[in-house]
């Protein structure tokens, strides 16, 4: 079974915050991590490989330093890592990202299954997974919370809905996006870490994947950011005072409109 996992390097949320005085993003010491949802996608891919045999390729699009997440993926059980990286990709929105990843998938070759995270925590769009499936012309199912059955033909899955879940069946090739409930990602083993240390990665440029220059980066993106600004500030914090009883009294008074 050949599985491709799309992983994105994102700034760690706990470091990204607005400086309340200057209203700018404080980025001091912003660490980069593998997008949390993608860790669950990777874990599931490695489990499927352990069960059915095969190979797990991790694919990322990003600047050269994004190889760090590929290395992390190898330490957690992936076999091969591909980075699509080119200055020309800068400013890609979800359409251009899906297009570029699809081109890279074609170059990687045959696959049975593609796994993505439900969304990336920097943009929170949840659009790249479905977009990639459309570009590749394969079926997709989003928000997988459980793999019920799997064999060499296909899968039976639970997908999370707002009012419960749907049980669906799909055959290969297919693309799935996953949520956090699916599994518990493993900690890298010592052997995995050794393997990651030595791992080499294939780097694809725009030309390598045969991308049309009008479809990538900012030029290939139908959407364009025209303004970035801080959210409206919240009022000042107000810790109530007095005995517990008095505090509760005050609180219920303040909340009267809602009760």
């Amino acid at each position, binding site marked *: 079974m050949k599985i491709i996992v799309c992983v994105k390097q994102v700034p760690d*949320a706990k470091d990204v915050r607005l400086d309340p005085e200057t209203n700018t993003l404080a980025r001091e010491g912003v660490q980069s991590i593998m997008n949390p949802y993608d860790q669950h996608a990777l874990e599931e891919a490695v489990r499927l490989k352990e069960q059915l045999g095969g190979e797990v390729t991790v694919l990322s699009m990003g600047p050269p330093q994004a190889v760090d997440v590929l290395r992390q993926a190898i330490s957690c059980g992936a076999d091969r890592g591909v980075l699509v990286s080119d200055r020309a990709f800068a400013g890609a929105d979800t359409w251009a990202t899906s297009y570029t990843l699809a081109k890279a998938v074609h170059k990687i070759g045959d696959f049975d299954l593609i796994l993505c995270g439900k969304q990336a925590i920097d943009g929170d769009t949840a659009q790249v997974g479905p977009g990639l499936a459309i570009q590749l012309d394969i079926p997709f199912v989003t928000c997988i919370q459980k793999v019920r059955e799997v064999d060499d033909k296909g899968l039976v899955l639970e997908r999370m809905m707002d009012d419960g879940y749907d049980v669906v069946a799909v055959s290969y090739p297919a693309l799935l996006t996953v949520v956090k409930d699916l599994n518990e990602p493993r900690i890298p083993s010592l052997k995995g870490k050794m393997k990651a240390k030595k791992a080499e990665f294939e780097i694809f440029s725009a030309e390598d994947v045969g991308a049309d220059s009008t479809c990538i980066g900012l030029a290939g993106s139908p959407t364009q950011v025209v303004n970035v600004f801080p959210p409206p500030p919240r009022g000042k914090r107000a810790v109530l005072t007095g005995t517990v009883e008095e*505090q509760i009294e005050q609180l219920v008074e303040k909340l009267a409109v809602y009760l």
Partner: protein
Amino acid sequence: MLIVDSELCIGCGVCEESCAFGAIEVVDGCAVVGDACTLCGACVESCEVEALEIDGGEKSIQADFESWQGVWVYCEFRAGTLAPVSLELLGAGRRLADARGVSLSAVLIGADTGDTAQRLIGHGADRVYRIDDSALAYFTDESYGAVLTDLIKTHKPEIVLAGATAIGRSFIPGVANSLGAGLTADCTQLDIRADDGALLQTRPAFGGNIMATIVCLSSRPQMCTVRHKVMKELEFDSSHQGEIVDVTPDPVLLQSKVRVLESVISEQDNVNIQESDILVAGGRGMDNAKGFELIRELADSIDAAVAASRAVVDAGWIAYPHQVGQTGKTVAPKLYIACGISGAIQHVAGMQSSETIVAINRDENAPIFDIADFGIVGDMYEIIPMLITKIEGQRGS
């Protein structure tokens, strides 16, 4: 490309601070752009001497750009029920359509939709495209996506809105991608730009730490998914006139390679916390599953739904659909009562747009108090029972 005008740049470093990706550095008194730049534009905004500019190259405008007209709302219908966000979107759609001087159409896809189309007209639609077919009883991305894509190609609306629900955020990206259209996820504000009529789509990014406004200038339709509870629905007006257009889809469009075997509406998960006006959220401070019962009691006393931090979900006291935060749901109720929640950034990311936030925590330094409108420092086992009694007393009187 991000271009730095070295003549204008004074090396002040404001852009360096404004970059969430660490892609700008001031070297020898001038800003230098690194590989991590995503062209988000935050630095351009922040530069006081206008030394930064984004050059996107020329985008070719779609050939039939001008012929796309009208505002559409995808109205989600599942298992006999219309998603409430649909009516809010008709309210927003009406406003946009009036600003553009065009008509507002609703798209209703499903089976046994009854008098839903009539309802949509009463809530502001001038036209309803109704695709009611037993083959559409269950949602699949392929069939719903193919039906909507085909309709959009035929009628060419300039704007398409959909709810940022599980269904909307699943199949709408597929539709937009196959149309080559721009799609903005999870918008919280929509406006028409006066000079060119473009749809200004504003959404939170980085867990609500920044807001970004997005436009689509070269292609049509302009598409977005919109959060629940941010747009206002119009009162039902039985005198509002509209036409219902029944569409019979080509059978080819109704096929799907994904088969739905079963649709499980879960008793426990069915309360969609994104739809509640009041949420009572419990954290690890409740100690154990039994302690968490107190949260449920408090919620019952004020007709609220129950939410939780990830720590609680991981401990198995409540199911994942109740988790709020970066890896759970984003909520914006009128009132959010956080009990025994420390206020980790990943949790705050999912609830900081709530109208009023109340925090109860025994640690006065807990970060949750930084965003709370009202805080009580103390032990929950003492506070919550008293609060329930007080509220019941208040409501009883």
